[in-house]
């Protein structure tokens, strides 16, 4: 496995020095994100997030399986992250790097453990049949801040996703195809988003949002806060790094809440647009002869 190459001394020194002069290499403000774009695929449950040069694709799928023996009333919900050599030559398939482990743990804690998806609603027949919802996260290109982009992609994909409708009739479970019955959305409880702060300077006094890859390599510490728009913290992870004053951390959480509200609005807006695009004016309109094949 090729090792990750450190940036040159000149770059390290310049990034730090420029930050002291309130400058970032791409001319952004400290609390400014790169242009964030979210698009949905033709299929339900495919979300593509671009954040500057970072690009993440998330795809949600569902299948009917047997629930775990110790949780007969819950469905199964998994998030699979993969950082492939496509992202950077230092990532290798089937050998998770520390970055990948931490990313997958963060998504797990943010989305799954915070109860964003109601897993009880995935249960079909107690102890026998349930939905297994799986989100695959693929990093297509890595220019820093994978966490925030990946989290946004996962949430957007799950909110966009529709699973086939089912019915229980006299002990017979029927799963309908999309043609028979319109697929139904998941039972979604709240939308958590990650906001990652990067710290620079001797005592981590400079806090910067949405670090690029170069900034991530130079930073002395980072803190990822996950919140939903109701102001509930879903997780905080400052896993080591240079100690930062507690007051600074509290301020960071406050700013993060404002960013999370922006993300939430973006996802809502894109979902409405997508819905409008898909809505062809009802069943009869779809059957018209002049439609595209």
């Amino acid at each position, binding site marked *: *496995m090729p090792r990750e190459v450190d940036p040159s001394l000149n770059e390290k020194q310049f990034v730090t020095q420029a930050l002291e002069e309130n400058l970032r290499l791409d001319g952004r403000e400290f609390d400014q994100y790169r242009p964030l774009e979210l698009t949905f695929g033709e299929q339900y449950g495919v979300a593509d997030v671009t954040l500057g040069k970072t690009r993440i694709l998330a795809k949600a799928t569902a299948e009917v399986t047997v629930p775990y023996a110790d949780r007969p009333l819950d469905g199964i919900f998994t998030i699979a992250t993969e950082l492939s050599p496509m992202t950077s030559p230092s990532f290798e398939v089937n*050998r998770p*790097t520390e970055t990948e482990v931490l990313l997958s743990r963060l998504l797990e*804690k943010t989305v799954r453990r915070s109860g964003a998806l109601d897993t009880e609603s995935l249960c079909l027949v107690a102890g026998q049949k349930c939905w297994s919802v799986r989100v695959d996260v693929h990093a297509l290109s890595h220019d820093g801040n994978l966490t925030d982009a990946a989290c946004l992609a996962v949430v957007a994909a799950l909110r966009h996703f529709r699973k086939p409708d089912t019915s229980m009739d006299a002990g017979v479970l029927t799963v309908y195809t999309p043609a028979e019955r319109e697929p139904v959305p998941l039972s979604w409880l709240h939308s958590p988003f990650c906001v990652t702060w990067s710290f620079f300077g001797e005592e981590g006094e400079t806090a910067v949002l949405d670090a690029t890859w170069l900034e991530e390599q130079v930073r002395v510490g980072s803190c990822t806060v996950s919140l939903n728009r109701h102001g509930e*913290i879903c997780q905080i992870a400052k896993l080591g790094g240079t*100690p930062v004053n507690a007051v600074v951390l509290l301020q960071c959480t406050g700013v993060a809440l404002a960013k999370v509200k922006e993300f939430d609005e973006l996802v809502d807006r894109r979902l409405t647009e997508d819905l409008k695009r898909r809505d062809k004016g009802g069943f009869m309109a779809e059957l018209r002869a002049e439609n595209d094949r």
Partner: protein
Amino acid sequence: MPLDTSTYNLALLRVDGRRWNELRRVHAQIRTQAAADGSSYLEMGHTKVMCVVTGPTEPGPRRGGAAAGGAGGGGVGSGGAGGKAEIVVGIVIAGFSSVDRKRYGRGDKRTLELASTVSNALAASLHTNLFPHSQINISLHVLSQDGSLLAALINAATLACVDAGIPMTDYVAACTAGSTSTYAANDEGADPLLDLNHQEEQELPGLTVATLGNSDRVAVLVCESRVQISRLEGMLAVGVDGCKQMREILDRVVREKGVRMIQEGTVEKGVGLGDIDMD
């Protein structure tokens, strides 16, 4: 088993009889292993952790990837590049450490995350730049779990590094803080709690804080449960305060051991050592 938090409001006592700002009994020892460069044993209530430090030594043969380490547990290194010592942390969680007797494999992501956190937290305090091209191995063994596991791991690792004589800025002391009443109840009168045990950790929102020495500077802040943002400040304040108490406890352990070693004649009573003021 749901925890009946309603009784707290009646007597202001927690399930194990503590008040809101009390730590559990902390018992710690250093230099427990004769063969190691540094070692420690730490109990926080029923959470029991052992730590063994070897190094700084010359790094062994390069093992592929960062995810290599102690048998059965996860190992994660940090630093290493650019003339600094690499801190490799391996965590072994014993199968008998918790009630449900779970087997923790090598690739367990939670263990790897714990290892990475301990490694990065210590990297901020240890003067790793004094030992270029070398490696500090920290091996942590969890013997019993009863909440505040990450805090216990950080404290034990700090003690063992002190014992190993690795230069460091200050102690990295950690503890947990929580809040009464669950996240759903938007209860303004919720009290913060110090040092959660397993039962409280399952039921109540909580966070782990590690600070550098006596300052307010937070090295580690991990929150894994849903909590209102307004309650963070209170929990953080209690947590930071708890870390200061913890630092005093760790410091006392080190000083007492030092005095005993001088008395036993393990260490020559030198010029500088006589000046240690005991309080």
